[in-house]
């Protein structure tokens, strides 16, 4: 085991500061669901004093959003996310992964399978899904639910058209200023967000390319502790970034971007592959969030016009905490709209990737606190820089009867403000 993992465990002095900031603890009110508890559990796990598998974990270690709020608050910078990730890996190294997570990994490893799943759901969309009228954003729900029909989940639109990559794909060696990696959510469902970014680049006269052979970044597989499958995807992505003839690789989804920038390096530390750790670090230098890119490397700010929208902004964990992107979107949103800061803008929305699938009720409770703060600002548009948060908060606003507040991606607002 890499000594940095042991150092991470020792960094925790058990002060308990994480209890005051953890969004999961706030609802669960139990020590096992906070950073200090996770770290204590992991320490016993590696000492061999305890043993469990995901199914017998009582959700300890798993009921964590990996939002890194605790890391930000920790006076000793204890990287809880690292410990939780590695602990999950440690567990499945000794036991196996639950079946649905194995299937998920299988599909996500293959672009062909993912495209197939997308096409199938697109073809069946009319049959399976219905549009929700007047939702905070284009959304659907499943027509028929078997057991609990009262829990009509709000889902992103199911598009039958081409994916973002299919729409803009280029050869991998094409020369351009930037390469675009949309991330799976934008690739398959929120293609409008990708379109908005393309529109902005065209307007600013920046050349771009979209490598057609880009695989999924592997973040959801990695978060489940399945490092072996994530490793393959990471290596394919690193090799791709290395050979591109571009200045920057813009990764539209913050989760994918922060995963590629920070976690690839960690992944290879966990797997004890120092050569790849170095290559991951090097590749990371090229990767950047779209809003950060536009702010620092283009003239967009001087070209924005004020729209009439009354906005507020939600900080995605994977923008604010992991990528330290919070000043840039605010400055641009202020220039493009009538902006009001909400209370607790950087509190996690509760999505957390598979967290919202594994713990739907808890995920909704966390989102519900966010909705209260959004409503208080009197904004008519909630601006978000992450599709996963957008999906979560669209559903939450709809559920609580605030369809009048529309959700919009930062890139969509910026594209609009360039047009006015």
């Amino acid at each position, binding site marked *: 085991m890499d000594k940095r993992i042991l150092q991470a465990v020792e960094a925790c*002095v*058990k002060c*308990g500061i994480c209890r*005051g900031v953890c969004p999961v603890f706030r609802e669960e*009110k139990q*020590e096992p669901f906070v950073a*200090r508890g996770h770290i204590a559990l992991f320490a016993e796990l590696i000492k061999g004093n*305890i043993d*469990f598998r995901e199914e017998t974990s009582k959700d300890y270690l798993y009921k964590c959003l990996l939002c890194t709020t605790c890391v930000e608050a920790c*006076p000793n910078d204890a990287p809880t996310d690292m410990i939780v990730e590695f602990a999950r890996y440690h567990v499945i190294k000794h036991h196996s992964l639950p079946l649905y997570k194995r299937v998920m990994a299988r599909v996500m490893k293959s672009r062909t399978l993912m495209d197939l799943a997308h096409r199938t759901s697109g073809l069946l969309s009319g049959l399976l899904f219905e549009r929700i009228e007047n939702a905070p954003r284009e959304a659907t729900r499943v027509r028929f639910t078997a057991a609990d029909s009262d829990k009509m989940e709000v889902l992103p639109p199911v598009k039958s058209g081409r994916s973002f990559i299919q729409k803009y794909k280029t050869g991998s060696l094409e020369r351009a200023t930037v390469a675009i990696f949309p991330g799976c959510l934008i690739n398959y469902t929120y293609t409008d967000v990708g379109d908005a970014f393309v529109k902005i680049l065209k307007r600013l006269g920046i050349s771009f390319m979209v490598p057609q052979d880009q695989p999924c970044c592997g973040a959801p597989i990695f978060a489940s502790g399945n490092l072996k499958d994530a490793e393959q995807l990471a290596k394919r992505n690193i090799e791709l970034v290395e050979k591109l003839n571009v200045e920057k690789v813009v990764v539209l989804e913050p989760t994918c971007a922060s995963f590629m920038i920070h976690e690839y390096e960690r992944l290879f530390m966990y797997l004890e592959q120092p050569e790849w750790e170095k290559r991951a670090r090097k590749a990371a230098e090229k990767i950047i969030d779209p809003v950060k890119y536009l702010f620092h490397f283009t003239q967009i700010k001087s070209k924005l016009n004020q729209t009439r929208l009354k906005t507020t902004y939600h900080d995605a964990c994977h923008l604010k905490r992991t990528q330290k992107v919070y000043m840039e979107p605010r400055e641009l949103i202020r220039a493009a709209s009538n902006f009001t800061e909400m209370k607790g803008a950087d509190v996690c929305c509760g999505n957390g990737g598979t967290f919202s699938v594994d713990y739907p009720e808890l995920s909704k409770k966390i989102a519900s606190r966010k909705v209260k703060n959004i409503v208080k600002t009197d904004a008519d548009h909630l601006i978000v820089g992450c599709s996963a948060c957008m999906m979560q908060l669209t559903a939450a606003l709809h559920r609580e009867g605030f369809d009048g507040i529309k959700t919009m991606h930062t890139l969509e607002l910026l594209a609009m403000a360039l047009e006015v």
Partner: protein
Amino acid sequence: MSAKAALSRLKRLLGSRCLTDKLSRVQYSYDATQLQYEPDVVVLPESTKEVSEVLKIASKYRIPVVPRGWGSGFTGGCLNVRGGIALSLERMDAIVSFDQENMLVRVQAGIANYRLQEFLRPFGLMFPPDPSSWKFSSIGGNIAENAGGPRAVKYGVTKNWVKALQIVLADGTVMEIGSANVKDVAGYDLVDLIVGSEGTLAVVTEALLRLHPLPECVKTIQVIFNDIQKAAETVFTIMKNRIIPTALEFVDRAAINATREALQLDLPTDADAMLIIDIDGSKAQVEEETKKLVKLIKGSDGVVDFKVAKDSSEAEELWLARRSISPTLKRIADGKINEDIVVPLSKIATMIKKTQEISRRYRLPIINFGHAGDGNIHVNIMYHKDNNDEKRRAIQAMDDVFKSVLQLGGSITGEHGVGITKKDYIEMQVGTPAMELMRRIKKAFDPDNILNPGKMGL
């Protein structure tokens, strides 16, 4: 098997909120001392009634019960040193009632100090006790340890703000002690007895707290000295001149150096000590006191530099050096013995000198910082965890520190409590007759010694 019978009754009472598996027991085995003692069972009550039922079962089968809040204590107060039941009150975190006119609030014990302050702020009120752990310690824990904090210089400690308590005795009896009245001398002051009793006499489930208006204005001043003795003398002079700051914090050379390096702060290299002073009150009051204070500082010996913060963000910067000390100490060594001694104000300079002598004698760095305004100094003896010789010397050095404190008429603990880490010193401080009286009080409350046994030298 009586243990089995007790367990099945607890399970029947609390269902999934009674935890016996190894994974859960690990999670309730530690606090900020980083020591670990696994309880045999963890219970998570959600009402006073449930706490009472748990205690009835525990007293019937004579099982130790250790009440626990947010587990942020520094002396092991919430550790199950003799196994038994970990009674975690973390789920009892409600605000029961709020009386804005009379400035009173009633809360359940498990609420975090921070959540309470957050609730009070919009009403322009505060609960004055502000232990450094205020963001992650419970009101129940604050009461059990009679916690203080930087503001104690002006506002006092927890006991000054607790009006009444709902407590559960070892046999499960629930009772209300104290009252909302400003004046009330009917009988012994049981509230004062329970506050600071570290969970050894009863379990506190609810508390009626007195509140204070938020100050209109706060001013922060930082003063740097080239001689720690002069800084200590200045503290004494300030208080003697009847200036009562809200907080009067002090930081020694080693701590200044550690934070300067860690945070790249602009602090003079010849700084031997630093004082951070907060003054609060009405605008006029604060301005006048600041003027008085600046005049006094200018006339003091050994002042190298001083700054008056212009606004709250500058104040935050000045405070940063003080707040960041604890975590940055790791840069000096990975192990520390941290005790919160107290000496009379006039003895601060002497005490600092003594710790410097002790540091030389045992060849270990000693870092001092803390609440100089009330004589409360955090003495940190630094050692390397993997060096057994250093560890042994550190323990001896702390022994010497405690002896010096007692010689100067001080106390071995100002706010952390006794718990298990200082249980061998309490008798030395209070004397055998007082200790015997405490044991008799303990026996009167808890004849079978099931409530937090093995703590406070009882």
